[in-house]
Structure formats: C-alpha cells, structure tokens
C-alpha cells in the first residue's frame, strides 16, 4: 500500500512539474490570481465560510448578552477590550454586533459565498463549457469580493467600532456621524465594503449570464439545463438589476454622511439643537434599499433551491417532478420579487391602498413557492431515497422553507404585519426561511460537490452527526422566536429586563442562547470534516453519486479547460433517473440512445464519454502535434473562443 501510494504521488508530482513547465504556473497564478473557475469557486467557498463563521461567532456574543444581561463575563473584556468594560457588553457594541452579523451572513456568506461558489463551479461544468466567458473578469470578481471582506473586517479595529445601524443601515442613524459610535468611520467602511462587494457580485453576474447564454455545449438547450444552473442564472439577472440601485442608495448615504448633503435628512434635533439638514426624506432610502433588499432574499434563496433540486433528484433516484414548472416558478418568483418591496414598509404610514396593493403582490409569491415545495415532495414520493448527508441537508432546506415561509404570509398582510413588525416574529421568519435554509443548502451542496472540488469524499458519519445536531438546534433556536414575537418582544434590544412583557420571556432567552451556543460549537464538526477530508478523505471516483449531469464526466483531477481534448455532447435532460427499461438507474446527459443501443456501460468506472465535440481551442497536446505553421487568426474570433491567453 505504502509503495503504491509512493508511486502515485511521484507520478502526480512528475505531472505537476510537467504542467508547470507548460503553463508557467506559480503559487500566485495557481491559487491567488487563478483564472480557473474551479479554483475561484474554492476561493469563494473558503472566504464565504470563514466570514460566515466569524458572523456566527458574533451572534454567540450577543446571544450571551440577551440571556444573561446582568452577568459580567471577564473573558469578554479580554477579547473585546473597551467594548466590554468589566465584562459587560457595551450597548453600542451590541448594535454593532447585530449589524455585522446580519451583513456578513446575508451578503458575504449567503450571497457572495453561496452564489459565488456554486455559480463558478456548476455553470461551466454543468453546461459543458471550458470556463467562464471571461476568466479574467471572473478573477476580478473574487478579488473585489475579497477586498470587500478585508475592509469590512477592518472596521472591527477602528477606534469608534464597526457600523451599528442594523444590516439595512437606515438613516438617520447611519447618516449622522455623531449619532452613535458605530455611525462614524465604521459606517464609511461598511459602505466601502459593500460597494466593493457589489462590484464583485456584478462582475460575477455578467459572466454567469453570458456563459449560460453563449457557452453551452452542443445539445445543451436551455430546457435541458440543470435546475441549479437555472436558479443561478436567474439570480445573476436579479443581482444585475437590483444591486445597482442599492449602490445608488449607498452613495447618496455616503454623501449625506460625509459630504454634507441632505438627501435623507430633515428636521433632526440632537439635544434640542436643530441640525441644518432640511428637505431630505428617509422613506426615499427605504424604497431604494428594499428595491434591492427584497430581491436580495431571493438572490439568497433561489440558488439554495436550485441546489436542493439537484440533490433531491439525484439522491432520490427520481426525475425532478415538474421540471418545466420548476423553471417557470423560478422565473415567476424572480419577477414577483421586484414588485413586493414595500411590504417591509407597512408601518411607515403609507397610503392604505398602496399597502393593500403590496399585500396582494406579496401573497402572489405563494403560488410559485408552493409549486416548488409540492414538486420537491412529489419527487421524494416513492423515490429510492438515499438518506446520505447531502440528501438530509436538502430535505432540511425544504423543511425550513416551509416552517419559515408560511409565516411570510402572516407578515405579508399589512394589518397583521403592523403589530408584528420589528418583533422576534420577523427574526424567526427570516432566519428559518432564508438564513437556515440557505445555509443548509450550502452545507448540502458542499457535501455533494466536495468530491468534485477536492477529489475526495467527506466523512458520512460526521456529516450525519453534523446534520442532526444542527437541524434540531436550528429549530429550537428559531421556532420559539415566533412566540416571543407574538408576545410583542421587539428585535434589536440590548436587554429585556426593563419591561415585564419582555422580561417574562427571559427563561426562553436563556434556553435559546444555550442551544445556540451548542449549535455553533457543532459546526466545528463540519470544519474538522471539511479540512480533514480535503487532505485525507477517501479518494473519490469520478461520479460518486451516480449523477447524470456533466460535471461528473470530467476527470477527478482538475484540468484547465475541464475536459481533456473534446467536450461532451448532450443528448437528454438532466434527470434521467430510474428510467424504465434503462440498463442502470441513471443515464448521464452525454449518453445518446445509440450509445445505449450499442451497449455502452457508462456505470462502470473510468468510462470515457463517446460523443464529444471539438469546438474550442485545441488542448495542449493537440497543439504540440499540429504542424508549426501559424494558425490564421479569425478576424472576429468565433463565438466560443476561450481566452486562455
């Protein structure tokens, strides 16, 4: 065994030397300034997970405060310094923690991390493309995201602390530098980080859209695309349309904050003194923000559901129920998400007629959402369900989408929302429907595509434990919040000791905090599993889940250009599982009916796809053997030219 390993590793090492010779790859070009979409996917995954982990730790600190508002924890002073004098959390810093928690998890983990990882990994690989339309812009996309992360994290270390106006950064708190410590430099850094982040997201989105529209392999019609790609594509369009107006909102906010304009400010008195700003309008900010803010929640959710579709179908060995309906419901949700934003503003004193209109549009979301849920359940129905870790997490997504999504309809009805607004009911709603369900999809996707990313399997047993503890923990943390919200407990309060109607819930707060701390700790199992498997996991076969989609037809060891030589051709939709009369319980997309008739045995290891096409630059080997006359360069490069430089 040892001898065998030695030969394998030496031959791999030999290959690396060889390829280094060819591409002149250094550590920097290979890992930092990589233009390979698979490496960029890993970069997004790691940056997303690391910032997500920091964001979750923040919530551990403020949960501690909520459960034990009168206790002093000396270790807090050790780590937080002046923000926890004598071990008691500073109220200003409590707000900063909540703000950074929300920002990091909504934008960094569940937008940048989730879409960035899976769009980069899946769009080229599942569509049979060699890479993104512009690998260079793709690289920049990650680098903007990364520097945004650095700026955001740096704001923890400035004198006045990070931004502290909630993840929605409403003015005037966010627009008046003197309003509270977190309104100072921290706020400027928050805006700077978000602008960098958005630029990164947009660069990604441009590439994702173009790659989907322009770079699909032969036979990959739109209606043969896996649902994950459909979702990621739609989300890129959503982002392209909704992030720029949010940037406009942030730019105006920055002007108000630092340059003395008054777009959002009017009639403000501080300590009896009127501020000079007049004529501004806070509602303007709310409209601009939520025009992004609501689509944003679907920018988070749709990729999660796309991933769930892949996992459920593959691991239930059944075609997804109602493929077309699924596609149309993705598009439908995306469309409706643009006309519901004012349901976040029911308490702003809007015209009741307008409130009813937005109630109506909001309730429309029920139709496509419910269709998706039913389709998941019908897909599972009588399936040959393999309850492995990815499948468990996928079912978890569906469960949280139901338990969190149903309360959305309470909140969507203006008269019901008015008493519930800004209570823990809302906190419960969005954590279950968006937070936990998208995190579960990200976990499920990671367990599922880990072999594709790192060529090794993650540990199943640890995955099981991780799933069950997290599933139970997340339900125990967030479900009780509905009751607290119905009891009128407001969100973003530093301590609930002052009023009897809130202090009555103190026991529940203690319970939630303890479960939350345990659930946070449980994530270390995942961290261990992730890094351990990366180096020492069981080596993965090419198609470990016996899935049909194209990413599993590429070699385990990553190649620049994904497929050696030629590209697979697509002959069928992506969900041919358990097809009656077929020789195996799955038929990959690149298998034609003639292949089947000829008796091709694709379920055996190391099968090479038969039908391939050559429609891009010749691979390295072919170039070497071709005659050394210079190839005439076409005036305008053909449609699918790859810029491998």
């Amino acid at each position: 065994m040892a001898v065998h390993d030695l030969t394998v590793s030496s031959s791999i090492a030999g290959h690396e030397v060889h390829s280094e010779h060819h591409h002149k790859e250094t550590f920097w070009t290979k890992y930092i300034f990589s233009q390979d979409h698979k490496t960029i996917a890993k970069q997004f995954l790691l940056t997303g997970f690391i910032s997500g982990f920091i964001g979750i730790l923040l919530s551990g600190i403020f949960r501690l405060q909520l459960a034990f508002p009168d206790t002093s924890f000396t270790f807090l002073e050790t780590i937080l310094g002046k923000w926890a004098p004598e071990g008691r959390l500073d109220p200003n810093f409590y707000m900063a923690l909540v703000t950074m928690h929300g920002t990091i998890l909504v934008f960094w983990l569940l937008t940048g991390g989730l879409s960035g990882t899976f769009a980069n990994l899946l769009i080229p690989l599942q569509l049979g493309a060699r890479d993104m339309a512009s690998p260079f812009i793709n690289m920049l996309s990650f680098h903007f995201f990364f520097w945004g992360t650095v700026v955001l994290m740096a704001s923890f270390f400035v004198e006045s602390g990070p931004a502290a106006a909630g993840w929605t950064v409403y003015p005037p708190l966010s627009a008046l530098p003197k309003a509270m410590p977190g309104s100072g430099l921290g706020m400027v850094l928050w805006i700077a980080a978000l602008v960098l982040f958005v630029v990164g997201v947009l660069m990604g989105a441009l590439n994702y859209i173009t790659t989907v529209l322009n770079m699909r392999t032969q036979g990959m019609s739109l209606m043969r695309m896996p649902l994950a790609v459909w979702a990621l594509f739609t989300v890129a369009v959503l982002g392209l349309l909704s992030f720029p107006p949010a940037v406009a909102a942030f730019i105006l906010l920055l002007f108000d904050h630092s340059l003395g304009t008054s777009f959002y400010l009017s009639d403000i008195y501080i300590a009896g003194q009127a501020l000079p700003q007049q004529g501004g309008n806070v509602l303007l900010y709310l409209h601009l923000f939520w025009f992004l803010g609501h689509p944003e929640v679907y920018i988070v959710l749709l990729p999660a559901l796309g991933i769930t579709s892949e996992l459920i179908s593959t691991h239930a060995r059944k075609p997804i129920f109602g493929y077309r309906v699924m596609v149309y419901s993705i598009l439908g949700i995306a469309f409706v998400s643009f006309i519901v934003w004012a349901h976040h503003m029911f308490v702003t004193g809007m015209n009741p007629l307008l409130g009813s209109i937005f109630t109506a549009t909001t309730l429309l979301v029920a139709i496509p959402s419910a269709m998706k849920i039913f389709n998941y359940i019908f897909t599972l129905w009588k399936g040959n369900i393999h309850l492995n870790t990815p499948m468990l997490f996928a079912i978890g997504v569906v469960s949280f989408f139901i338990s969190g999504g149903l309360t959305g309809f309470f909140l969507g009805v203006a008269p019901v929302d008015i008493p519930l607004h800004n209570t823990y009911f809302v906190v419960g709603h969005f954590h279950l429907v968006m937070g936990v369900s998208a995190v579960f999809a990200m976990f499920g996707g990671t367990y599922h595509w880990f072999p594709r990313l790192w060529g090794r399997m993650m540990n199943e047993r640890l995955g099981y434990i991780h799933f069950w503890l997290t599933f139970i923990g997340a339900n125990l943390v967030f479900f009780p919040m509905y009751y607290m919200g119905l009891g009128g407990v407001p969100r973003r309060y530093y301590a609930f000791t002052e009023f009897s109607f809130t202090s009555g819930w103190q026991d529940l707060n203690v319970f939630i905090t303890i479960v939350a701390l345990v659930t946070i700790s449980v994530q270390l199992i995942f961290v261990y599993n992730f890094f351990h498997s990366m180096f020492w996991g069981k080596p993965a076969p090419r198609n470990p889940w016996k899935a049909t989609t194209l990413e599993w037809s590429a070699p385990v060891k990553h190649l620049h250009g994904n497929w050696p030589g030629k590209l697979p051709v697509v002959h069928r939709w992506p969900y041919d599982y358990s097809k009656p009369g077929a020789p195996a319980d799955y038929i990959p997309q690149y298998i034609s009916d003639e292949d089947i008739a000829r008796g091709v045995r694709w379920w055996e290891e190391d099968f090479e796809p038969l039908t391939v096409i050559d429609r891009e630059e010749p691979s390295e080997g072919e170039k070497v053997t071709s005659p050394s006359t210079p190839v005439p360069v076409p005036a305008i490069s053909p449609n699918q030219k790859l810029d491998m430089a």
Partner: protein
Amino acid sequence: MAFAMKPVSSPRLHPKELLMWLYLAATAMLFAGFTSAYLVQRFHDFWKGFEIPPIFWANTGVLLLSSYAYARAQRGLAFGNYRHLQLGLMTALSLGVIFLLGQVIGWQMLIRQGLFLAGNHKAVSYFYVFTGLHALHLGVGVVGLAYWTFRALRYRISIKDSLGLKLMGLFWHGLDVLWIYLIVFLQLNQLL
C-alpha cells in the same frame, strides 16, 4: 500584421460583447436608481431650481464629436487605414480629456455662484452626484482610450483587435448616451 481590406462583421453576438452590454445595463440601473431618487424629491416643497451653466451643453457637443471620432477610428481599422485609426483615436481621446476639463470648469462656475454639493439645495446636490459619477466613469474610459491610442501610435493594433476596439467603443458610446440622457433630464427638470 495582416490587414483585411474590407469590413468584417460578426454573425452572432460575441460573449465579450454580451458582457459589455450587460455591464451597460448595470450602469443604466445605477442611474435609474438615482433618477428615481431625484424624481421622488423633485416634487417636494423644498425643491428649487438653478441655471445649468451653458458650458455643460458645450461639453455635450465635445463628447458627441469624440464618439464620432471613435467611430471613424473603427472604420479606419475595418478598412485597413492605419492613419484614420490613429487620427480617430487621438481625436477621441483629446476630446474626452477636453470634456473632463470642461466639466471641471462647469463645476467651478457653479461654485462661484455659491452652488455647492453640501447643503439643502437638492437640485444642485443631485447635479453634482449625477455629473460627478458620470465623470468618474468617463475617466475610466479615457484611460482605456489612452491605452488604445498608445498601441495605435506604435502600430501595435491588428484586425485581431477589432473586438477589443468594439468593446471600447460600446463603453465610450454608452457614456455618451448616458451623458445625453443626464443633461436632457436635468435641463428639462429645470425648465418644467
């Protein structure tokens, strides 16, 4: 470097071209955001107008000419006329720089009238935001033009580059269209 003697056109949209169109769509959404903010506040009691210095209209002409010169440069490339390519690019670049200088002069005229970004005069604040962000984008375009001009002057552009020049052109003409929209929109709001 071989030069084709007749214009070449792409039968289908090249991916990079689509990318540029999508980028322009994102920019359009950014300014749509600003526009809607403007319109929301436009009808408040506080709103009052101001005279837009005519130099901004003169600048509009400069930018239009620059776009035209750029189109000439592209034709030069397509017909293999290096002289036209160089001249066109140099003209487009210089006019771009003149536009930026003109904008700076325009802002100074506003400042001399006591119309500042800061303060409660929303129409003026918006004017600075709109024109400033446009100028920022245009600055990027000038850098791009300078790059292509530099290459053209050193005879380092071939027909292979027509895609690159086309993308640059989309960006440059896009900024032109954006500017015309902005100046017309802002002027109409002063008149109405």
